[in-house]
């Protein structure tokens, strides 16, 4: 029985997880923190150049090593080849595998811890891509967790390493620490007030990169952005994390300032946007993924501003994932085209928001009416 359970996506979806658990969505602005490390096994070709048999060999040895880690007890264990198109998409939407892994050839797999905080992709661009996800802003906790996991893994695998270049990776842009740390940030006020371009430029200058929700090449619907370190060689992990942490903190401050300015300049306009989003979510019959993301984003902003109860944030965070095409089709129990998905999405959101509390909006400027 445990074996079947460990390869069942349904079991994964019904299990409580770091990102969809009600207890996890307590924070405004930073939705989650993620750190990933790239590791390769010494004496083996990188996945992109390895022959199919070599890829299989790496998959087997990495799986054996991971199975011995206490952190990965009873983990989920999927071979990408055994997963259907829809199942792969669901794992991408939950940030547990990358788009690259989902489209990969044979010999690729992923191991996911029970709480879905750790995921270890095998034979993506590197032999191992180890990831930890933490709800909210928590770089220190995330680093401790992934550092421990990596050290435990090192007891069983010999990692390719050079004293000068650090951990050796398939792409030279990842050399050194081979660490990419990121935070997923909800920045609606910076988007509304057209300041994102300025932020992206400033963040770039500080050696950090801004990407859309699903990484490289994805758009930033829902005003959700990933901010991560760009360089990996030349600085220790703690130094990179400290700098990223202070960049994130300053973005949080900018977002809070932008929110305050929007309220000060024209609270009515902002409340109108949020109120309309609420109305559409309760009553629409067709919703594209992009529109749904933007509406949910406005409701999350509404919660942060105190227009809705704080405990509703976890619902929004869950729906930001579950309104994605893969999850919708899974709930529907079958693939369907974009038009049908828009109907399903609207129906799902209508039912979720039927009992959602009404926004408590006080008149923006009571004095003006008198």
């Amino acid at each position, binding site marked *: 029985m445990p074996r079947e359970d460990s390869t069942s996506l349904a079991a994964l979806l019904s299990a409580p997880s770091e990102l969809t658990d009600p207890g996890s969505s307590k924070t405004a602005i930073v939705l989650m923190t993620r750190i990933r490390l790239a590791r*390769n096994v010494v004496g083996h070709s990188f996945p992109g*150049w390895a022959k199919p048999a070599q890829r299989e060999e790496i998959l087997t040895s990495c799986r054996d090593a991971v199975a011995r880690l206490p952190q990965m007890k009873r983990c989920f264990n999927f071979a990408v080849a055994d997963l259907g198109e829809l199942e792969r998409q669901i794992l991408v939407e939950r940030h547990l595998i990358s788009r690259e892994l989902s489209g990969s050839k044979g010999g690729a797999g992923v191991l996911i811890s029970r709480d879905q905080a750790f995921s270890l992709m095998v034979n993506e661009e590197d032999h191992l891509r180890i990831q930890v996800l933490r709800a909210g802003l928590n770089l220190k906790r995330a680093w401790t967790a992934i550092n421990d996991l990596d050290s435990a893994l090192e007891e069983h695998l010999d990692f390719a*390493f050079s004293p*000068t270049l650090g951990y050796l990776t398939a792409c030279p842009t990842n050399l050194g620490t081979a660490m990419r740390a990121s935070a997923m940030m909800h920045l609606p006020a910076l988007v509304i007030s057209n300041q994102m371009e300025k932020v992206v430029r400033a963040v770039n200058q500080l050696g950090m990169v801004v990407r859309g929700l699903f990484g490289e090449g994805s758009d930033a619907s829902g005003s959700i952005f990933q901010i991560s370190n*760009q360089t990996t060689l030349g600085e220790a992990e703690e130094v990179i994390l400290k700098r990223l942490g202070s960049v994130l903190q300053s973005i949080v401050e900018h977002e809070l300032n932008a929110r305050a300015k929007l309220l000060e300049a024209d609270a009515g306009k902002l409340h109108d946007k949020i109120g309309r989003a609420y109305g559409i979510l309760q009553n629409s019959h067709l919703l594209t993924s992009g529109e749904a993301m933007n509406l949910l984003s406005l409701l999350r902003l509404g919660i942060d501003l105190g227009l809705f109860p704080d405990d509703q944030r976890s619902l929004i965070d869950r729906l930001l994932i579950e309104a994605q095409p893969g999850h919708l089709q899974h709930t529907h129990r079958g693939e369907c085209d974009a038009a049908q998905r828009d109907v399903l999405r609207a129906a799902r959101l209508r039912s979720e928001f039927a009992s959602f509390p009404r926004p408590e909006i006080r008149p923006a400027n009571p004095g003006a009416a008198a």
Partner: protein
Amino acid sequence: MANPLKCDLCSKPATVHLTQIVNNKVHKVDLCEACAQAKGVTDPGGFSLADLLLKASLTPDAAPPAPGTRCPRCGYTPVEFKKHGRLGCPACYDAFATLVEPMLANMHSGVTHSGKVPARSLERKSLHDRLTKLELDLTEAIKSERYEDAARTRDEINQVKQAFHPDAP
């Protein structure tokens, strides 16, 4: 009027001009509409110019490797590296050092690793290297009938093996 800028990738007139600052160095790239689209540059979600520079082999100071160079371990070639921006195996970093190392200064905040070291892996490797050497010494000692040396080497081998598997009896 000055000549219009040409696309760095295909030489058509460039309409997209990019500037990105990495480690206080200014990188400029001019692209035509089609190449900009193909490279995902127009994407609002952002992109990495370092990656683009690497893939397009626009990095200025990378020395061309000697023709016919191959990684002795995996057979990868510099042509493949230029095409994919990825290497074939960890040993490629030695084989193509003259090609890769000049790129690093543009890509990273330093060229020397600082940070975590896989201490256990390295310890195992050094024990393994030591064992290989001792076994060679042993064969040599037996061949030249230096039995006292052989006995001492055998003791040392046992000690190293013990360090490998400290729990073994």
